[in-house]
């Protein structure tokens, strides 16, 4: 593949667009998540759950507690990043918000309307406004569809009244905006490199002019030099289209660069929410502190990270009290019993930690 193939969209008009995005910053809440819970059953269907125990037939159910009472607000035109290690429930939050999973408890409100209990027909107008970008562009593009077909499909679904000309024009325009040559429409997904595929996946999400994008680890599967290209593309799209992002990632360096606010998750709960600059300057929650200290930096300081005892516990049997207490250097008796709730600090940071609340930390 020749290098001239990937054209980078030029953004000369960036200055005033940034201003526009900033002005919209103090706008209203776009998405609200209330006490969201999601459990996955491990025990199969009803008959699989039955066991003989001491001569009796008993029913035993086990669950993975993927999300346990998450509350999040996303304001219009902000980029909220959700970070955490594997298994902390960040992808489950993304999928539940998009309606790809239905919550076990809790509510999701989009622009004032509750959406988690709607039928798929009722959801259709919302689906046009919210789109998703997945982690692995090798799996998220249909291998039997050409790029043209891939990009036309969402338009045909959401704009059944458009004629062929309108659809083709929109596809061409969106392809140009993500830096893929519109002449490549006849090709199939497998003919492209990872970075180009991710551009196509982004084009598919942008095709219907959404206002809200959920991006689940969109650059984790890409090489370093390609990561920068795709991240720039996502940031340009945000400025130009005034998009709101829910950005899921495990990479804190990306969060620092991309996010306006950050929510740190651990074992299905949010332990800290803060503005990006505040979080990186002054992490409060002991887990956030450990997470930040673990980023390998280029500076010549050698690995100096905060050591955490043990490993993440299983989400099948959640620890009592604060889910982090088993690994926390500041845990006391209260942490083992009482579940901490998010509490707003003086500077607007919200932390769920007894030690912070009691001033022990």
């Amino acid at each position: 593949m020749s290098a001239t193939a990937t054209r980078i969209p030029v953004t000369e008009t960036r200055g005033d667009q940034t201003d526009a995005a900033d002005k919209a910053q103090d706008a209203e809440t776009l998405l609200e998540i209330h006490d969201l819970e999601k459990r996955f059953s491990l025990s199969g269907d009803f008959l699989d759950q039955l066991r003989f125990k001491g001569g009796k037939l008993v029913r035993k159910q086990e669950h993975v507690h993927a999300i346990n009472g998450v509350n999040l607000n996303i304001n219009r035109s902000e980029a909220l990043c959700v970070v955490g290690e594997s298994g902390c429930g960040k992808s489950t939050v993304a999928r539940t918000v998009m309606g790809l999973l239905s919550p076990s408890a809790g509510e999701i409100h989009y622009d004032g309307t509750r959406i988690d209990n709607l039928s798929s027909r009722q959801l259709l107008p919302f689906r046009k406004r919210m789109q998703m970008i997945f982690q692995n562009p090798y799996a998220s593009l249909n291998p039997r569809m050409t790029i043209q077909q891939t990009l036309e499909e969402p338009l045909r679904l959401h704009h059944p009244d458009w004629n062929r000309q309108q659809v083709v024009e929109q596809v061409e325009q969106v392809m140009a905006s993500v830096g893929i040559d519109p002449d490549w429409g006849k090709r199939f997904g497998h003919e492209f490199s990872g970075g180009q595929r991710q551009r196509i996946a982004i084009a598919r999400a942008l095709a219907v002019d959404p206002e809200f994008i959920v991006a689940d680890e969109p650059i984790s599967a890409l090489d370093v030099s390609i990561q920068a290209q795709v991240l720039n593309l996502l940031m340009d799209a945000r400025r130009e289209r005034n998009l709101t992002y829910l950005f899921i990632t495990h990479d804190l360096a990306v969060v620092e660069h991309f996010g306006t606010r950050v929510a740190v998750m651990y074992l299905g709960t949010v332990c800290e929410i803060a503005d990006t600059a505040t979080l990186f300057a002054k992490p409060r929650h002991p887990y956030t502190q450990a997470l930040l200290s673990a980023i390998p930096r280029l500076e010549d300081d050698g690995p100096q990270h905060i050591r955490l005892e043990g490993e993440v516990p299983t989400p099948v049997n959640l620890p009592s009290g604060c889910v982090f207490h088993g690994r926390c250097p500041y845990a006391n008796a209260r942490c083992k019993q009482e579940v901490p709730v998010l509490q707003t600090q003086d500077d607007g940071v919200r932390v769920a930690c007894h030690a912070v609340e009691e001033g022990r930390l």
Partner: protein
Amino acid sequence: MALLEVNQLDVRFALRKGEVRALRDINFTLERGERLGIVGESGAGKSVAAFALLNLIAKPGFIAGGEVNFEGQTLNTMSERRLRKVRGNRISMIFQDPMMTLNPVLSIGEQMVESLKAHRRISTKRARAIALDKLQQVQIPSPETRLDQYPHELSGGMRQRIIIAIALLLDPDIIIADEPTTALDVTIQAEIMALLLNLCEQHNVGLILITHDLGVVSQVTQRMLVMYAGRVIEQGPTREIINDPQHPYTQGLINALPQMATPGEQLNQIRGSMPSLSNLPGGCAFHPRCDFIKRADGQTRPACVEQVPGFVTSGNCQVACHMVAEMQEDRRLKEEGQ
């Protein structure tokens, strides 16, 4: 003489559509107890280089030329029988995915005893004692129980600790670690890297660390190689390269990191993507993506397009770039003129 010396290593893959040159002109040395990083994007040839060191290239690949000298012995022409005494014993390897490396049907203890007994004539009891000691060294909680557990019972971080214990089992001189922490979470990655670094220092073991993560390389290694499209394009002391990269590709890689940019601003990106090895551009393989192929007068440097760059010395580093060579030449002429 260095512990490990790689001279002009050349690896090719004989494919139906023709020969693909996966590695060419690889030269480096590793002293006893030294830590060397090999950095590059996927497809740059880092893993092939690691495999080639132990002559582990599988068909259709083959080592077409060059040599790997370990303590004066040439590994790539050695018989399999003698090579087996080096592999795992003097030079051991750690792979990326700990689940793929451990045998799922053998307990941890059985796997460790097996490799000890393959290389040394010792009793099972003695072997278990050594295994236990190594598990303690990698700070695994309750090591006695772990010996009788199976890989699926352990978490990813724990498995990678076991792999490190196995790599250390026979007190090797060199450990080759191929993306040892890529499959792990950040906090676990930090733990494992600190452990590996610590053990290498303690036992004076040489480490060849293969990774795409510049942060990890910068914290762990003393010298590094940067690879692009099957070649080394820059090599030298890690600090010098990280602080003052000479090759445009290395500069691009470092500048593309989010930590190098102001939050919210554009990241510096490298145009395009790495060419496929079967279809390399002529001249310098990086030239289609390079921002420096034009001279000050706006003319393209013909050498970049036509000629494969050789190494020039810059400080303590070796750089394969026509621009760097030309700038040095200009400087030399200027000094001579004065």
